[in-house]
């Protein structure tokens, strides 16, 4: 059963002389436990699609239904709360909070959920251990490499036990070893905890790991391929 459904969504930017359709009539559905890659050239609309799926951008037309909830019907406050409880984000440029240490960045989400200091510290430490950063918990983002920062971002995205993790080109700034590490972590969490991962990418190493590859060009889906049966 589909947990994310997008129906004929369009995102048009009218600030330019000629209206630009970043997303132009996409209809997709995702089931629980998918490990899906959205691929396509730069400017094809991957990031816009992910932002719309995550509720941080709104489509100009069409509907987004997540877990039977019409995103458009939620108020700004409800939408923020919905994101906090259901969606984890991994951004291309990590986007960690610079003044917080690695463990505080992970704890931040749990703090917003109102968890006690002990609970959140325990969970954050466990997640950082899982992503292999158990010994760098007190380092600030500036003291970590790109790969390490992205692993902290993954730990942060998973902290609230979300239903979905949306990752925008998570390996774009990483070397091959860090990419391999990160993919293994995401794959393991997908397999063991059933978290749905949807990521946009250019990277062939990421595409190889995906069990579903959606190709978009000029804001339209040109192919939607399932590589292997979904075994969750």
């Amino acid at each position: 059963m589909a947990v994310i459904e997008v129906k004929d969504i369009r995102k048009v930017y009218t600030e330019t002389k000629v209206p630009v359709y970043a997303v132009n009539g996409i209809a997709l559905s995702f089931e629980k436990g998918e490990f899906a890659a959205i691929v396509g050239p730069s400017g094809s609309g991957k990031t816009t699609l992910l932002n719309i799926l995550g509720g941080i951008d709104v489509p100009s037309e069409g509907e987004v239904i997540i877990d039977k909830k019409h995103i458009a019907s939620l108020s700004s406050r409800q939408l923020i709360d919905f994101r906090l409880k259901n969606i984890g984000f991994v951004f291309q440029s990590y986007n960690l909070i610079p003044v917080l240490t690695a463990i505080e960045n992970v704890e931040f989400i749990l703090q917003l959920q109102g968890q006690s200091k002990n609970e959140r510290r325990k969970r954050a430490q466990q997640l950082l251990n899982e992503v292999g950063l158990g010994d760098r918990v007190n380092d600030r983002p500036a003291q970590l490499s790109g790969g390490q920062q992205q692993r902290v971002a993954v730990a942060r995205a998973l902290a609230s036990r979300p239903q979905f993790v949306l990752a925008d080109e998570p390996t774009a700034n990483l070397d091959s070893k860090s990419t391999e590490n990160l993919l293994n972590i995401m794959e393991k969490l997908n397999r063991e905890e059933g978290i749905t991962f949807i990521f946009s990418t250019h990277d062939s190493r990421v595409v190889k790991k995906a069990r579903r590859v959606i190709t978009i060009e000029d804001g339209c889906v040109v192919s939607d391929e399932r590589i292997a049966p979904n075994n969750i």
Partner: protein
Amino acid sequence: MAWRNLWRNKRRTFITITSILFAMFFALVMRSMQKGSYANMVDNVVGSYTGYIQIHGADYWDKKTIDESLDASEFSEEEISELKNVKGLVPRLESFALASSENVTKGTLLTGIIPEKENVFTGLFEKIVDGKYLETGDGQVMLAEKLASYLKLGLGDTLVLISKGYHGVSAAGKYAVKGILHFPSPELNKQLVYMNLEDCQAFFGTENRLTSYVVLLGRHDPKIIAQTRDAIRKTLSQSYEVMSWEEMMPELVQIIESDNASGKIMLGILYMIIAFGIMGTIMMMTLERIREFGVMVAVGMQKFKLGLVVLFETLLMGIIGIILGSGLSMPFIYYYYLNPIRLTGDAAASIESFGVEPIMPFAWESSFYLNQALVVLVITLITGLYPFFKVIKLEPVDALKSK
């Protein structure tokens, strides 16, 4: 969270706090200078001669003639001295007289005093720059420095005084110069002549009469002055008038009020500069953090809560800046309170023309510290609304694109 954001980003916090600190420092120094200069004006004229409250015979102040003087034998000094805040009464007989030396003549203000009492009030003894202080019954005079120099008189020389006495009798006398006095007010320095009250009464033919009693007060608070004046008015009959210094010298009040108005405009301009300074820093800080705010909202922080955190950060920096700015200004203001800046040249001449000593003293009061702190805090709070509303209106998708 707000506190952590501040101390984890020391450079940004330091810059913002420094801008608030200097704002507070300059506002305090400027206000202290303004208040100090008013206090100097009042002290120069009121504190060293007129007194804060005077008692006269009815209509004396309007007519200023010796004929409107009061009879000291009918006046109960004790009754007034017992009133709250009254420390004592200093009797005077004042009138104008023509002073002559060998071939120079000048109009003067002749004042008859009881030397010991006058010294308690004005510290007249301290103003002697040459010669000796008057003693009861010595039949001599003390002259203000510039008057003595104009009349070319020195110690032991003879001063001739001519005037109109009580009820038109002619008054004339010769007196030896016993002391030369220096007054901070150039006006007073040009015209004062002091002699013993009894000698003065004999000169004007007034017997036991006085033109005024200067009331000595424990404190010179405007409220206390008004209360005491009213209390004395209630005690005395209609044959007397009781006036505060503001009533006796409306021109001085006007000078202070007009200077205060321009001072307030200057202070307003300073506040605007301060506000723009703080606003510039806060705006830069906000724009630098837009992406960070975007991430926080994207991952699930409510905008209102984030806005409050940012507002609280600004408020904390404001409070720290105010405390440090006050602390920094205190030794500076206190030093210049004790050692006022002495003006020279044209600036000095223009101040002297108002009859005020050309110094720039600083005031040392707690009240304006509180006022300035409140003003700077309100400015900081208003400035803090910019990041607050920026966060409230923030769209995470746009914020995440910012550099």
